[in-house]
Protein backbone atom coordinates (compact mmCIF):
# COMPACT_ATOMS: atom_id res chain seq x y z
CA UNK A 1 0.00 0.00 0.00
CA UNK A 2 1.43 3.32 -1.01
CA UNK A 3 1.76 5.76 1.82
CA UNK A 4 0.54 8.96 0.19
CA UNK A 5 -0.37 10.62 3.49
CA UNK A 6 3.00 10.53 5.10
CA UNK A 7 2.72 14.07 6.48
CA UNK A 8 2.19 13.18 10.10
CA UNK A 9 -0.62 14.60 12.21
CA UNK A 10 0.48 17.33 14.59
CA UNK A 11 1.36 16.26 18.10
CA UNK A 12 0.82 19.76 19.46
CA UNK A 13 -2.88 20.17 19.95
CA UNK A 14 -5.19 22.93 18.77
CA UNK A 15 -5.78 23.81 22.42
CA UNK A 16 -2.07 24.42 23.02
CA UNK A 17 -1.78 26.67 20.00
CA UNK A 18 -5.04 28.45 20.86
CA UNK A 19 -3.81 29.04 24.39
CA UNK A 20 -0.53 30.49 23.13
CA UNK A 21 -2.48 32.76 20.77
CA UNK A 22 -4.52 34.27 23.62
CA UNK A 23 -2.20 33.89 26.60
CA UNK A 24 1.37 33.87 25.30
CA UNK A 25 4.33 32.94 27.45
CA UNK A 26 6.02 36.22 26.48
CA UNK A 27 5.11 39.73 27.70
CA UNK A 28 2.01 41.29 26.17
CA UNK A 29 0.94 44.87 25.60
CA UNK A 30 -2.83 45.18 25.60
CA UNK A 31 -4.72 48.04 24.02
CA UNK A 32 -8.30 48.70 25.03
CA UNK A 33 -11.32 50.07 23.20
CA UNK A 34 -9.93 53.59 23.65
CA UNK A 35 -6.74 52.77 21.70
CA UNK A 36 -7.83 51.09 18.49
CA UNK A 37 -5.42 50.02 15.77
CA UNK A 38 -6.45 51.83 12.60
CA UNK A 39 -6.18 49.25 9.81
CA UNK A 40 -5.63 49.98 6.12
CA UNK A 41 -8.87 48.15 5.32
CA UNK A 42 -10.75 50.89 7.17
CA UNK A 43 -11.54 48.99 10.34
CA UNK A 44 -10.52 50.12 13.81
CA UNK A 45 -9.36 47.01 15.63
CA UNK A 46 -10.03 47.16 19.36
CA UNK A 47 -9.25 45.75 21.77
CA UNK A 48 -6.07 44.05 20.64
CA UNK A 49 -2.79 42.83 22.03
CA UNK A 50 0.84 42.57 20.90
CA UNK A 51 3.11 39.87 22.30
CA UNK A 52 6.83 40.61 22.35
CA UNK A 53 10.22 39.63 23.70
CA UNK A 54 13.10 41.84 24.76
CA UNK A 55 16.77 41.06 25.30
CA UNK A 56 19.44 43.26 26.89
CA UNK A 57 18.80 46.53 28.66
CA UNK A 58 17.54 49.90 27.58
CA UNK A 59 20.17 52.54 28.34
CA UNK A 60 19.52 55.73 30.32
CA UNK A 61 18.84 57.96 27.32
CA UNK A 62 16.81 55.25 25.58
CA UNK A 63 18.99 55.39 22.49
CA UNK A 64 20.07 51.76 22.10
CA UNK A 65 16.82 50.04 21.13
CA UNK A 66 16.85 47.73 18.11
CA UNK A 67 13.61 46.41 16.70
CA UNK A 68 13.79 43.04 14.97
CA UNK A 69 10.98 42.47 12.49
CA UNK A 70 10.30 38.79 11.95
CA UNK A 71 9.67 37.00 8.69
CA UNK A 72 6.43 35.35 7.54
CA UNK A 73 6.45 32.15 9.56
CA UNK A 74 8.59 33.27 12.50
CA UNK A 75 7.68 34.99 15.75
CA UNK A 76 8.99 36.99 18.71
CA UNK A 77 11.04 34.10 20.11
CA UNK A 78 14.29 35.33 18.61
CA UNK A 79 16.80 34.16 21.21
CA UNK A 80 14.90 32.00 23.66
CA UNK A 81 13.38 28.53 23.55
CA UNK A 82 10.18 28.36 21.57
CA UNK A 83 7.23 27.73 23.91
CA UNK A 84 5.54 25.24 21.57
CA UNK A 85 8.43 23.41 19.95
CA UNK A 86 11.05 23.75 22.68
CA UNK A 87 13.59 24.60 19.96
CA UNK A 88 16.19 27.37 20.08
CA UNK A 89 15.25 30.91 19.03
CA UNK A 90 15.27 31.53 15.28
CA UNK A 91 18.04 34.15 15.32
CA UNK A 92 20.21 33.04 18.23
CA UNK A 93 23.11 33.01 15.80
CA UNK A 94 22.67 36.78 15.40
CA UNK A 95 21.38 37.90 18.81
CA UNK A 96 23.22 37.53 22.10
CA UNK A 97 26.26 38.73 24.04
CA UNK A 98 29.07 39.45 21.57
CA UNK A 99 26.89 38.58 18.58
CA UNK A 100 26.25 41.15 15.82
CA UNK A 101 23.07 42.21 17.64
CA UNK A 102 24.97 42.41 20.90
CA UNK A 103 22.67 42.17 23.89
CA UNK A 104 25.42 43.66 26.06
CA UNK A 105 25.15 46.87 24.05
CA UNK A 106 21.70 47.02 22.57
CA UNK A 107 18.18 46.63 23.84
CA UNK A 108 16.55 44.20 21.44
CA UNK A 109 12.80 44.07 20.90
CA UNK A 110 10.86 41.68 18.72
CA UNK A 111 7.10 41.59 18.57
CA UNK A 112 4.84 38.97 17.11
CA UNK A 113 3.17 40.81 14.22
CA UNK A 114 -0.50 41.70 14.31
CA UNK A 115 -2.27 38.84 12.52
CA UNK A 116 0.26 36.34 13.87
CA UNK A 117 -0.55 33.38 16.05
CA UNK A 118 1.95 33.59 18.89
CA UNK A 119 0.18 36.04 21.16
CA UNK A 120 -0.55 39.09 19.03
CA UNK A 121 -4.17 39.47 18.01
CA UNK A 122 -4.82 37.49 14.85
CA UNK A 123 -7.26 35.01 13.33
CA UNK A 124 -6.31 32.36 15.92
CA UNK A 125 -7.12 34.72 18.81
CA UNK A 126 -10.46 34.68 20.55
CA UNK A 127 -12.86 37.32 19.27
CA UNK A 128 -14.19 39.00 22.41
CA UNK A 129 -17.52 39.59 20.66
CA UNK A 130 -18.23 35.89 20.09
CA UNK A 131 -15.93 34.05 22.48
CA UNK A 132 -14.72 32.00 19.51
CA UNK A 133 -11.59 32.21 17.40
CA UNK A 134 -11.71 35.10 14.93
CA UNK A 135 -11.04 32.88 11.92
CA UNK A 136 -11.89 34.61 8.66
CA UNK A 137 -13.87 37.26 10.54
CA UNK A 138 -10.53 38.83 11.36
CA UNK A 139 -9.96 41.89 9.17
CA UNK A 140 -7.34 41.64 6.43
CA UNK A 141 -4.14 43.27 7.60
CA UNK A 142 -1.20 44.84 5.78
CA UNK A 143 2.49 45.44 6.41
CA UNK A 144 1.76 49.10 7.35
CA UNK A 145 -0.80 47.78 9.88
CA UNK A 146 1.89 45.58 11.44
CA UNK A 147 4.24 48.55 11.68
CA UNK A 148 1.55 50.81 13.13
CA UNK A 149 0.94 48.23 15.85
CA UNK A 150 4.67 48.02 16.56
CA UNK A 151 4.82 51.81 16.85
CA UNK A 152 2.05 51.65 19.46
CA UNK A 153 4.02 48.97 21.32
CA UNK A 154 7.12 51.19 21.32
CA UNK A 155 5.06 54.12 22.62
CA UNK A 156 3.96 51.82 25.41
CA UNK A 157 7.57 50.84 26.12
CA UNK A 158 8.54 54.52 26.17
CA UNK A 159 10.86 54.34 23.18
CA UNK A 160 10.68 57.38 20.91
CA UNK A 161 13.54 56.58 18.52
CA UNK A 162 14.89 53.23 17.45
CA UNK A 163 18.63 52.93 17.02
CA UNK A 164 18.02 50.35 14.32
CA UNK A 165 15.23 48.40 12.68
CA UNK A 166 16.36 45.12 11.17
CA UNK A 167 14.63 42.22 9.47
CA UNK A 168 14.70 39.84 6.55
CA UNK A 169 12.04 38.98 3.98
CA UNK A 170 8.64 40.05 5.39
CA UNK A 171 10.69 41.54 8.23
CA UNK A 172 12.62 43.58 5.66
CA UNK A 173 9.34 44.89 4.25
CA UNK A 174 8.44 46.08 7.75
CA UNK A 175 11.86 47.74 8.04
CA UNK A 176 11.20 49.68 4.82
CA UNK A 177 7.70 50.57 5.95
CA UNK A 178 9.13 51.83 9.26
CA UNK A 179 11.52 54.17 7.48
CA UNK A 180 8.86 55.39 5.06
CA UNK A 181 6.18 55.91 7.72
CA UNK A 182 8.26 57.02 10.71
CA UNK A 183 11.60 58.27 9.34
CA UNK A 184 12.22 60.44 12.38
CA UNK A 185 11.86 57.43 14.67
CA UNK A 186 14.45 55.27 12.89
CA UNK A 187 18.14 56.15 13.19
CA UNK A 188 19.35 53.25 11.06
CA UNK A 189 17.76 50.47 9.05
CA UNK A 190 18.98 47.10 7.88
CA UNK A 191 16.55 45.60 5.38
CA UNK A 192 17.72 42.14 4.31
CA UNK A 193 16.64 39.91 1.42
CA UNK A 194 13.53 41.92 0.71
CA UNK A 195 11.86 44.26 -1.72
CA UNK A 196 9.73 47.39 -1.77
CA UNK A 197 6.93 45.38 -3.35
CA UNK A 198 5.92 41.77 -3.62
CA UNK A 199 6.49 40.46 -7.13
CA UNK A 200 3.88 38.69 -9.26
CA UNK A 201 5.85 35.45 -8.97
CA UNK A 202 5.86 35.70 -5.19
CA UNK A 203 2.14 36.45 -5.09
CA UNK A 204 1.67 33.37 -7.28
CA UNK A 205 3.56 31.16 -4.81
CA UNK A 206 1.53 32.56 -1.93
CA UNK A 207 -1.69 31.87 -3.78
CA UNK A 208 -0.53 28.27 -4.26
CA UNK A 209 -0.03 27.99 -0.50
CA UNK A 210 -3.37 29.55 0.35
CA UNK A 211 -5.20 27.32 -2.09
CA UNK A 212 -3.54 24.27 -0.53
CA UNK A 213 -4.81 25.34 2.90
CA UNK A 214 -8.30 26.12 1.68
CA UNK A 215 -8.52 22.86 -0.31
CA UNK A 216 -7.95 20.83 2.86
CA UNK A 217 -11.32 19.37 3.98
CA UNK A 218 -10.28 20.06 7.56
CA UNK A 219 -10.17 23.80 6.89
CA UNK A 220 -13.98 24.26 7.14
CA UNK A 221 -13.87 27.83 5.78
CA UNK A 222 -11.54 28.79 8.57
CA UNK A 223 -13.75 27.52 11.40
CA UNK A 224 -11.63 24.48 12.18
CA UNK A 225 -11.19 25.39 15.83
CA UNK A 226 -14.87 24.71 16.45
CA UNK A 227 -14.55 21.32 14.77
CA UNK A 228 -11.36 20.47 16.67
CA UNK A 229 -9.51 19.97 13.41
CA UNK A 230 -6.63 21.79 11.71
CA UNK A 231 -5.94 21.73 7.98
CA UNK A 232 -2.49 20.40 8.67
CA UNK A 233 -2.05 18.65 5.33
CA UNK A 234 -2.93 21.74 3.32
CA UNK A 235 -0.75 23.91 5.52
CA UNK A 236 2.12 21.44 5.26
CA UNK A 237 1.87 21.53 1.47
CA UNK A 238 1.86 25.34 1.59
CA UNK A 239 4.96 25.22 3.74
CA UNK A 240 6.66 22.73 1.41
CA UNK A 241 6.05 24.97 -1.59
CA UNK A 242 7.22 27.99 0.36
CA UNK A 243 10.28 26.20 1.62
CA UNK A 244 11.42 25.37 -1.91
CA UNK A 245 11.33 29.08 -2.74
CA UNK A 246 13.48 29.86 0.32
CA UNK A 247 16.28 27.58 -0.90
CA UNK A 248 18.14 27.32 -4.18
CA UNK A 249 18.71 24.53 -6.64
CA UNK A 250 22.41 24.54 -5.74
CA UNK A 251 21.71 24.28 -2.01
CA UNK A 252 19.21 21.46 -2.51
CA UNK A 253 21.69 19.64 -4.70
CA UNK A 254 24.51 20.08 -2.24
CA UNK A 255 22.33 18.88 0.63
CA UNK A 256 20.45 16.01 -1.01
CA UNK A 257 21.30 15.56 -4.67
CA UNK A 258 19.22 12.66 -5.96
CA UNK A 259 20.11 10.48 -3.00
CA UNK A 260 17.58 7.91 -1.79
CA UNK A 261 16.10 7.87 1.69
CA UNK A 262 16.87 4.63 3.62
CA UNK A 263 16.88 2.53 0.47
CA UNK A 264 19.01 1.51 -2.48
CA UNK A 265 16.42 1.28 -5.22
CA UNK A 266 13.24 3.17 -6.07
CA UNK A 267 10.08 1.58 -4.65
CA UNK A 268 8.01 2.42 -7.73
CA UNK A 269 5.49 4.14 -5.47
CA UNK A 270 4.74 7.63 -4.18
CA UNK A 271 6.63 7.05 -0.99
CA UNK A 272 9.36 9.51 -0.10
CA UNK A 273 12.05 7.67 -2.05
CA UNK A 274 14.28 10.71 -2.32
CA UNK A 275 15.90 12.42 0.64
CA UNK A 276 14.67 15.77 -0.61
CA UNK A 277 11.05 14.54 -0.43
CA UNK A 278 11.48 13.30 3.07
CA UNK A 279 13.10 16.58 4.08
CA UNK A 280 10.21 18.61 2.67
CA UNK A 281 7.62 16.42 4.41
CA UNK A 282 9.49 16.92 7.66
CA UNK A 283 9.54 20.69 7.09
CA UNK A 284 5.80 20.63 6.42
CA UNK A 285 4.99 18.50 9.45
CA UNK A 286 7.06 20.45 11.92
CA UNK A 287 5.66 23.74 10.66
CA UNK A 288 2.02 22.84 11.30
CA UNK A 289 2.89 22.10 14.93
CA UNK A 290 3.62 25.72 15.65
CA UNK A 291 1.65 27.69 13.10
CA UNK A 292 -1.98 28.50 12.53
CA UNK A 293 -3.39 27.92 9.04
CA UNK A 294 -5.55 31.06 9.00
CA UNK A 295 -2.64 33.15 10.19
CA UNK A 296 -0.68 31.86 7.20
CA UNK A 297 -3.46 33.11 4.92
CA UNK A 298 -3.48 36.57 6.50
CA UNK A 299 0.27 37.09 6.64
CA UNK A 300 0.89 35.94 3.07
CA UNK A 301 -1.86 38.35 1.99
CA UNK A 302 -0.18 41.19 3.85
CA UNK A 303 3.04 40.55 1.92
CA UNK A 304 1.15 40.36 -1.39
CA UNK A 305 -0.37 43.80 -0.85
CA UNK A 306 2.97 45.41 -0.01
CA UNK A 307 4.06 48.06 -2.49
CA UNK A 308 5.70 51.15 -1.03
CA UNK A 309 5.85 53.08 -4.30
CA UNK A 310 2.11 52.64 -4.83
CA UNK A 311 1.50 54.61 -1.65
CA UNK A 312 3.64 57.45 -3.05
CA UNK A 313 2.14 58.02 -6.49
CA UNK A 314 4.24 55.22 -7.96
CA UNK A 315 7.56 56.99 -7.35
CA UNK A 316 9.67 54.95 -5.00
CA UNK A 317 12.18 57.70 -4.26
CA UNK A 318 9.27 59.84 -3.06
CA UNK A 319 8.76 57.43 -0.16
CA UNK A 320 12.22 58.20 1.21
CA UNK A 321 12.58 61.88 0.31
CA UNK A 322 14.70 63.85 2.75
CA UNK A 323 15.17 60.83 4.97
CA UNK A 324 17.97 60.97 7.56
CA UNK A 325 18.00 57.26 8.36
CA UNK A 326 21.22 55.39 7.58
CA UNK A 327 20.53 52.32 5.46
CA UNK A 328 22.38 49.10 4.87
CA UNK A 329 20.65 46.97 2.25
CA UNK A 330 21.74 43.34 1.99
CA UNK A 331 20.87 40.76 -0.65
CA UNK A 332 22.12 37.26 -1.42
CA UNK A 333 23.26 36.06 -4.84
CA UNK A 334 21.18 32.86 -4.87
CA UNK A 335 17.96 34.42 -3.51
CA UNK A 336 15.42 34.04 -6.29
CA UNK A 337 12.45 35.04 -4.13
CA UNK A 338 13.85 38.52 -3.53
CA UNK A 339 16.63 38.77 -6.12
CA UNK A 340 19.41 41.34 -5.93
CA UNK A 341 17.83 43.34 -8.77
CA UNK A 342 15.00 44.30 -6.40
CA UNK A 343 17.42 45.43 -3.71
CA UNK A 344 19.26 47.40 -6.34
CA UNK A 345 16.06 49.20 -7.34
CA UNK A 346 15.59 50.11 -3.69
CA UNK A 347 19.15 51.36 -3.42
CA UNK A 348 18.73 53.50 -6.53
CA UNK A 349 15.62 55.04 -5.03
CA UNK A 350 17.38 55.69 -1.74
CA UNK A 351 20.30 57.25 -3.60
CA UNK A 352 17.95 59.40 -5.62
CA UNK A 353 16.35 60.60 -2.39
CA UNK A 354 19.87 61.31 -1.17
CA UNK A 355 19.66 58.93 1.79
CA UNK A 356 22.84 57.56 3.34
CA UNK A 357 22.83 54.02 1.98
CA UNK A 358 25.19 51.06 1.80
CA UNK A 359 24.44 48.02 -0.25
CA UNK A 360 26.12 44.66 -0.22
CA UNK A 361 25.30 41.56 -2.19
CA UNK A 362 26.60 38.50 -0.41
CA UNK A 363 27.74 35.51 -2.41
CA UNK A 364 26.14 32.31 -1.17
CA UNK A 365 24.33 29.34 -2.70
CA UNK A 366 21.93 29.06 0.24
CA UNK A 367 19.10 31.05 -1.30
CA UNK A 368 16.64 33.35 0.42
CA UNK A 369 17.05 31.58 3.77
CA UNK A 370 20.69 32.70 3.94
CA UNK A 371 19.76 35.51 6.32
CA UNK A 372 18.79 32.92 8.94
CA UNK A 373 21.90 30.79 8.48
CA UNK A 374 25.54 30.92 9.42
CA UNK A 375 26.85 33.32 6.75
CA UNK A 376 29.86 35.06 8.34
CA UNK A 377 30.01 37.76 5.68
CA UNK A 378 26.47 38.82 6.58
CA UNK A 379 27.32 38.89 10.29
CA UNK A 380 30.43 40.98 9.63
CA UNK A 381 28.53 43.51 7.59
CA UNK A 382 25.69 43.76 10.11
CA UNK A 383 28.15 44.20 12.96
CA UNK A 384 30.19 46.82 11.12
CA UNK A 385 27.12 48.74 10.04
CA UNK A 386 25.72 48.82 13.57
CA UNK A 387 29.09 49.83 14.97
CA UNK A 388 29.50 52.76 12.60
CA UNK A 389 25.88 53.80 13.14
CA UNK A 390 26.51 53.47 16.88
CA UNK A 391 29.46 55.83 16.61
CA UNK A 392 27.33 58.36 14.78
CA UNK A 393 24.69 57.94 17.47
CA UNK A 394 27.18 58.29 20.31
CA UNK A 395 26.69 54.67 21.37
CA UNK A 396 30.33 53.69 21.06
CA UNK A 397 30.69 52.72 24.69
CA UNK A 398 27.48 50.77 24.61
CA UNK A 399 24.86 50.44 27.27
CA UNK A 400 26.55 47.77 29.30
CA UNK A 401 30.18 48.50 28.46
Amino acid at each position, binding site marked *: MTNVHSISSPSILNEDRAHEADHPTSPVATFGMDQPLRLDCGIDLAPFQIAYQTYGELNADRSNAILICHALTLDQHVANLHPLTGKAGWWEIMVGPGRPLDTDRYFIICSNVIGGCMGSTGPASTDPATGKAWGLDFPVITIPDMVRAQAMLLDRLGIETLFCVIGGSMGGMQVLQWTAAYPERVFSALPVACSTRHSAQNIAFHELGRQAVMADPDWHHGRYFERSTHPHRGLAVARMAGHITYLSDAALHRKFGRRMQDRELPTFSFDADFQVESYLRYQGSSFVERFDANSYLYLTRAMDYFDIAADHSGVLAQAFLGIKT*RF*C*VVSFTSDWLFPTSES*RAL*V*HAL*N*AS*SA*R*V*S*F*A*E*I*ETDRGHDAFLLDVP*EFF*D*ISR*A*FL*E*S*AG*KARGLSNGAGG
Partner: protein
Amino acid sequence: MAVQEPALPLGGVAPDRTGKYRTDHLMVAEMIPAGSKVLDVGCGDGELLQLLESRGIDGRGIELSREGVNRCVAKGLAVVQGDADTDLVNYPDDAFDYVILSQTLQATRQPKPVLENLLRIGRRAIVSFPNFGFWKMRLQLLVGGHMPRTENLPATWYDTPNIHFCTIKDFVQLCDEINVKMERAVALDLYGRPVPLNLPWWVWNMFGEQGVFLLSRGGAGK
Protein backbone atom coordinates in the same frame (compact mmCIF):
# COMPACT_ATOMS: atom_id res chain seq x y z
CA MET B 1 41.87 71.72 -31.33
CA ALA B 2 44.21 73.73 -29.19
CA VAL B 3 45.00 72.36 -25.81
CA GLN B 4 44.50 75.07 -23.28
CA GLU B 5 46.55 75.22 -20.18
CA PRO B 6 44.68 74.96 -16.90
CA ALA B 7 43.89 78.38 -15.55
CA LEU B 8 44.44 77.67 -11.90
CA PRO B 9 47.07 75.03 -11.34
CA LEU B 10 47.10 73.42 -7.93
CA GLY B 11 49.72 74.72 -5.58
CA GLY B 12 50.86 74.39 -2.02
CA VAL B 13 49.80 70.81 -1.39
CA ALA B 14 52.25 69.23 1.00
CA PRO B 15 52.58 65.53 0.24
CA ASP B 16 51.94 63.24 3.17
CA ARG B 17 55.18 61.76 4.46
CA THR B 18 53.56 59.52 7.06
CA GLY B 19 52.76 57.06 4.30
CA LYS B 20 49.32 56.42 5.74
CA TYR B 21 47.51 57.72 2.70
CA ARG B 22 48.35 57.76 -0.97
CA THR B 23 49.51 61.16 -2.16
CA ASP B 24 46.87 61.37 -4.87
CA HIS B 25 44.21 60.70 -2.22
CA LEU B 26 45.60 63.44 -0.01
CA MET B 27 45.64 65.74 -2.99
CA VAL B 28 41.97 64.99 -3.69
CA ALA B 29 41.09 65.49 -0.03
CA GLU B 30 42.82 68.87 -0.01
CA MET B 31 40.54 70.05 -2.80
CA ILE B 32 37.33 69.41 -0.82
CA PRO B 33 36.13 71.62 2.03
CA ALA B 34 34.78 69.97 5.19
CA GLY B 35 31.02 69.54 5.26
CA SER B 36 30.78 68.80 1.55
CA LYS B 37 28.71 65.93 0.27
CA VAL B 38 30.84 63.70 -1.93
CA LEU B 39 30.31 60.67 -4.17
CA ASP B 40 33.36 58.52 -4.88
CA VAL B 41 32.77 56.54 -8.05
CA GLY B 42 34.81 53.35 -8.13
CA CYS B 43 35.80 53.71 -4.50
CA GLY B 44 37.63 50.37 -4.24
CA ASP B 45 38.03 49.34 -0.64
CA GLY B 46 37.16 52.80 0.63
CA GLU B 47 40.60 54.18 1.49
CA LEU B 48 39.85 57.62 0.07
CA LEU B 49 36.35 57.70 1.59
CA GLN B 50 37.81 56.95 5.00
CA LEU B 51 40.28 59.80 4.60
CA LEU B 52 37.43 62.13 3.57
CA GLU B 53 35.20 61.07 6.46
CA SER B 54 38.09 61.67 8.88
CA ARG B 55 38.10 65.26 7.60
CA GLY B 56 34.41 65.85 8.18
CA ILE B 57 33.32 65.24 4.60
CA ASP B 58 30.05 63.37 4.03
CA GLY B 59 31.11 60.61 1.66
CA ARG B 60 29.26 58.00 -0.38
CA GLY B 61 30.66 55.45 -2.77
CA ILE B 62 29.89 53.27 -5.76
CA GLU B 63 32.03 50.22 -6.38
CA LEU B 64 31.79 47.54 -9.01
CA SER B 65 33.46 44.67 -7.17
CA ARG B 66 31.49 42.83 -4.50
CA GLU B 67 34.59 42.31 -2.38
CA GLY B 68 35.32 46.02 -2.45
CA VAL B 69 31.77 46.92 -1.41
CA ASN B 70 31.75 44.44 1.44
CA ARG B 71 35.06 45.75 2.74
CA CYS B 72 33.69 49.31 2.61
CA VAL B 73 30.49 48.41 4.43
CA ALA B 74 32.57 46.58 7.01
CA LYS B 75 34.39 49.88 7.55
CA GLY B 76 31.07 51.58 8.12
CA LEU B 77 31.15 53.49 4.84
CA ALA B 78 28.03 54.21 2.80
CA VAL B 79 28.90 52.33 -0.36
CA VAL B 80 26.68 50.61 -2.88
CA GLN B 81 27.50 48.07 -5.50
CA GLY B 82 27.14 49.53 -8.95
CA ASP B 83 28.62 50.29 -12.33
CA ALA B 84 29.71 53.82 -13.22
CA ASP B 85 28.79 53.24 -16.86
CA THR B 86 25.19 52.25 -16.19
CA ASP B 87 24.24 53.57 -12.75
CA LEU B 88 25.23 57.23 -12.82
CA VAL B 89 22.28 58.06 -15.08
CA ASN B 90 19.98 57.17 -12.17
CA TYR B 91 21.41 59.86 -9.93
CA PRO B 92 19.53 63.14 -9.85
CA ASP B 93 21.13 66.47 -10.86
CA ASP B 94 23.11 68.33 -8.21
CA ALA B 95 22.89 65.45 -5.74
CA PHE B 96 26.47 66.03 -4.56
CA ASP B 97 28.91 68.88 -4.07
CA TYR B 98 31.80 66.86 -5.46
CA VAL B 99 31.93 63.64 -7.45
CA ILE B 100 35.26 61.84 -7.50
CA LEU B 101 36.53 59.47 -10.15
CA SER B 102 39.83 58.26 -8.78
CA GLN B 103 41.91 55.98 -11.00
CA THR B 104 38.73 54.65 -12.60
CA LEU B 105 38.25 56.66 -15.81
CA GLN B 106 40.43 54.28 -17.79
CA ALA B 107 38.25 51.32 -16.75
CA THR B 108 34.95 52.81 -17.91
CA ARG B 109 33.39 51.77 -21.20
CA GLN B 110 32.18 55.29 -21.99
CA PRO B 111 34.53 57.84 -20.45
CA LYS B 112 32.85 60.80 -22.11
CA PRO B 113 29.27 60.23 -20.85
CA VAL B 114 30.69 59.20 -17.49
CA LEU B 115 32.51 62.52 -17.25
CA GLU B 116 29.38 64.38 -18.33
CA ASN B 117 27.36 62.55 -15.68
CA LEU B 118 29.92 63.38 -13.00
CA LEU B 119 29.40 67.07 -13.64
CA ARG B 120 25.64 66.72 -13.77
CA ILE B 121 25.41 64.89 -10.43
CA GLY B 122 28.03 67.01 -8.71
CA ARG B 123 28.68 70.72 -8.86
CA ARG B 124 32.35 69.85 -9.19
CA ALA B 125 34.22 66.72 -10.18
CA ILE B 126 37.67 65.50 -9.28
CA VAL B 127 39.22 63.09 -11.73
CA SER B 128 42.53 61.33 -11.37
CA PHE B 129 43.96 58.82 -13.80
CA PRO B 130 47.24 57.22 -14.84
CA ASN B 131 48.89 59.24 -17.59
CA PHE B 132 49.63 57.11 -20.63
CA GLY B 133 51.87 59.89 -21.89
CA PHE B 134 54.28 59.23 -19.02
CA TRP B 135 57.80 58.72 -20.27
CA LYS B 136 58.05 55.17 -18.92
CA MET B 137 54.93 54.21 -20.81
CA ARG B 138 56.23 55.79 -23.98
CA LEU B 139 59.55 54.05 -23.54
CA GLN B 140 58.02 50.61 -23.08
CA LEU B 141 56.02 50.94 -26.25
CA LEU B 142 58.78 52.66 -28.20
CA VAL B 143 61.73 50.56 -27.15
CA GLY B 144 60.18 47.42 -25.66
CA GLY B 145 57.53 47.20 -28.36
CA HIS B 146 54.94 45.94 -25.91
CA MET B 147 51.93 47.41 -24.10
CA PRO B 148 53.26 49.28 -21.07
CA ARG B 149 52.96 47.86 -17.56
CA THR B 150 53.86 49.70 -14.40
CA GLU B 151 53.77 49.09 -10.68
CA ASN B 152 50.38 50.82 -10.49
CA LEU B 153 49.07 49.17 -13.65
CA PRO B 154 50.52 45.68 -13.52
CA ALA B 155 47.92 43.84 -15.63
CA THR B 156 48.78 42.50 -19.06
CA TRP B 157 46.89 43.87 -22.07
CA TYR B 158 44.55 40.86 -22.27
CA ASP B 159 43.38 40.75 -18.68
CA THR B 160 43.35 44.40 -17.70
CA PRO B 161 40.11 46.06 -16.63
CA ASN B 162 41.54 49.26 -18.08
CA ILE B 163 40.20 49.74 -21.57
CA HIS B 164 40.39 53.49 -22.19
CA PHE B 165 43.83 54.79 -21.43
CA CYS B 166 44.55 58.41 -22.16
CA THR B 167 47.30 60.93 -21.68
CA ILE B 168 47.02 64.15 -19.71
CA LYS B 169 46.91 65.93 -23.04
CA ASP B 170 44.04 63.75 -24.27
CA PHE B 171 42.11 64.41 -21.09
CA VAL B 172 42.53 68.15 -21.31
CA GLN B 173 41.28 67.94 -24.86
CA LEU B 174 38.20 65.95 -23.78
CA CYS B 175 37.40 68.50 -21.08
CA ASP B 176 37.65 71.22 -23.68
CA GLU B 177 35.40 69.31 -26.03
CA ILE B 178 32.57 68.82 -23.53
CA ASN B 179 32.87 72.33 -22.18
CA VAL B 180 34.27 71.44 -18.78
CA LYS B 181 36.20 74.05 -16.86
CA MET B 182 39.47 73.00 -15.26
CA GLU B 183 39.75 74.77 -11.95
CA ARG B 184 42.89 73.08 -10.75
CA ALA B 185 45.23 70.52 -12.24
CA VAL B 186 48.26 68.71 -10.98
CA ALA B 187 50.55 66.02 -12.30
CA LEU B 188 52.26 63.65 -9.89
CA ASP B 189 55.57 62.08 -10.72
CA LEU B 190 56.59 58.47 -10.20
CA TYR B 191 57.09 59.10 -6.50
CA GLY B 192 53.73 60.81 -6.04
CA ARG B 193 55.33 64.29 -5.90
CA PRO B 194 53.69 67.15 -7.77
CA VAL B 195 55.53 68.02 -10.96
CA PRO B 196 56.77 71.64 -10.62
CA LEU B 197 54.12 74.01 -11.86
CA ASN B 198 56.38 76.40 -13.66
CA LEU B 199 57.28 73.73 -16.17
CA PRO B 200 55.57 73.78 -19.55
CA TRP B 201 52.51 71.67 -20.24
CA TRP B 202 54.29 69.07 -22.33
CA VAL B 203 56.56 68.31 -19.37
CA TRP B 204 53.50 67.38 -17.31
CA ASN B 205 52.37 65.08 -20.05
CA MET B 206 55.81 63.50 -20.18
CA PHE B 207 56.79 63.35 -16.52
CA GLY B 208 53.42 63.10 -14.79
CA GLU B 209 52.79 59.49 -13.83
CA GLN B 210 49.22 60.48 -13.07
CA GLY B 211 47.01 63.54 -13.30
CA VAL B 212 44.57 64.95 -10.77
CA PHE B 213 42.00 67.47 -12.01
CA LEU B 214 39.38 69.58 -10.29
CA LEU B 215 36.63 70.31 -12.78
CA SER B 216 33.49 72.37 -12.85
CA ARG B 217 30.72 72.98 -15.34
CA GLY B 218 30.97 75.38 -18.19
CA GLY B 219 34.17 76.25 -20.00
CA ALA B 220 35.01 79.37 -21.92
CA GLY B 221 31.79 81.02 -22.95
CA LYS B 222 29.99 78.09 -24.53
